[in-house]
């Protein structure tokens, strides 16, 4: 008897602890949103778009005149020399650099810049290296892989969606926009009442509706809720008119079970 009570107590406590740990709201970690960076888009043109300021031009002219009027001494300014620490001993690398600089300063007619150097036919053949092209192709592959990796990362714009639904913001917007156009709201709905109709859909991969179910079905037949039936019917009609729904071509497992929450309250409040 005592053993069974003890076991029961132990298992109950274990059960409570497990429930507390595994409850979804307790597991949910706070959403770590990246800081918002505001970006101004500027169009770059050849000419400046800043209007010509007459006052600024006048002041510039005044400054120029002043500079011309200023008396300039004929005496040459003292030559600037690098202050060197007396105890500083030049390193061998520095010495080499100095030598190179000196060589460049000399007039060297043989020196031709790389860009304008003309290569002979034989030289061109030598320059063509198929291995280099292969390397370039490999590099381009690496670059595309990098961009793909970057795309897979969560960006700021679709953070909310990836948490709330399996669709990205643009995919969700496309679906919303489609249904907005199909949903004719029944006019004459009461204000300040719950006008939320939740419809659960089972979709085919092409976006056609396999099964639709009104989640608050019991509310339809309640007294004083006649408007709800009309509203639910209008929502179902909207889904049927919109078929096939604009769903993404991939990720069927994510959106095959879709729940649409039709809320007329926001529309009525304007």
């Amino acid at each position: 008897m005592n053993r069974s009570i003890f076991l029961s107590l132990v298992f109950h406590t274990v059960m409570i602890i497990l429930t507390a740990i595994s409850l979804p709201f307790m597991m949910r970690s706070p959403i770590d949103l990246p800081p918002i960076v505001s970006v101004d888009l500027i169009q770059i043109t050849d000419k400046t778009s800043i209007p010509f300021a007459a006052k600024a031009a006048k002041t510039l002219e005044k400054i120029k005149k002043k500079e011309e009027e200023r008396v300039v001494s004929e005496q040459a300014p003292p030559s600037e020399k690098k202050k060197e620490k007396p105890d500083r001993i030049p390193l061998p690398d520095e010495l080499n650099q100095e030598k190179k600089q000196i060589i460049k300063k000399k007039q060297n007619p043989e020196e031709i810049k790389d860009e304008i150097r003309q290569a002979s036919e034989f030289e061109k053949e030598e320059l063509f290296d198929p291995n280099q092209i292969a390397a370039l192709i490999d590099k381009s592959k690496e670059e595309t892989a990098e961009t793909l990796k970057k795309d897979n990362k969560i960006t700021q714009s679709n953070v909310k969606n990836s948490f709330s639904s399996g669709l990205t913001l643009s995919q969700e917007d496309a679906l919303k926009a489609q249904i907005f156009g199909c949903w004719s709201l029944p006019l004459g709905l009461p204000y300040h009442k719950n006008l939320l109709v939740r419809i659960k859909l089972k979709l085919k991969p092409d976006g056609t509706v396999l099964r639709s179910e009104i989640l608050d079905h019991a509310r339809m037949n309640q007294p004083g809720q006649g408007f709800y039936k009309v509203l639910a019917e209008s929502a179902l009609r909207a889904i049927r008119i919109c078929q096939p729904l604009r769903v993404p071509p991939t990720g069927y497992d994510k959106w095959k079970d879709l729940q649409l929450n039709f809320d007329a309250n926001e529309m009525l409040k304007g």
Partner: protein
Amino acid sequence: MIKKILFIFILFIFSNSAKAVVEVDITRGNLDPLPIAVSPLHVESGSTDVKQGDKIIKNVGEKISEVIEVNFKRSGLFNPLKKNSFVQDPDIAHIKPRFEDWRLIKAQALITGKVNVTENKIRVEFRLWDVVASKEMIALAFSTTPNNWRRIAHIISDKVYQRLTGEKGYFDTRIIYVSETGPKTQRFKKLAIMDQDGANVKYLTLGNELVLTPRFNPQNQLVTYLSYFKNLPRVYLLDIETGVQEVVGDFPGMTFAPRFSPDGKKIIMSFAKDGNSDIYTMDIKTRVVEKIKK
């Protein structure tokens, strides 16, 4: 035993990690009038024409559909589609509509029906179809005297309106008003009543005396209004069904501005005596008068 319990625990833990359903909030829609197709009601073979006074109405089914269409158009909530675009015949559409055809002309609701007219009876049957869902929404039949065909059209409009908007319809209602005729110097003011669409105008008074402020009883067919009696403004009560008219109370002064109470059992009015006006209520059945302002 312990193994079993452990297994249940493990199942319990994993059950919580079930994938959530994708939810999308739809907070906007369009407020365009609902496109509705009102198919002309099919008149059954063997039906007679409807005689209304001097007029003979041949295709009463089409007339009924026209009245319904005008009602919906005027309500602003529906957009009745043009009959030229209808593909299906009315008699076949009433049995089983080809929804694909009706969907083609962008109709979301469809009204079909049939009429059978005999010498002194008209029977109208109608069905409302949800074109998008391909199902019937309501089906009703009415029987009355042939002269009442307009009223049937209004009742059908009411039923469809209620089914599609969730609100009670107002099409089967009448308006009481004061009709003015004659030159500016000599106006005749008659009490008149008509259907809400302006049809069936009837005059209730002859126009000998001035009439003003007619008011309907919210519960029944009684009307109260102000008219002159022995050169004094007096409140009258008129029963539209029987045509009986009477002066409310025998007061020495004048009575005016009558209204019915919301329950329709009392009349509230002003009563002027010795240059002083007070508000009185009078019970219609017992005729007990009470002053409500001291």
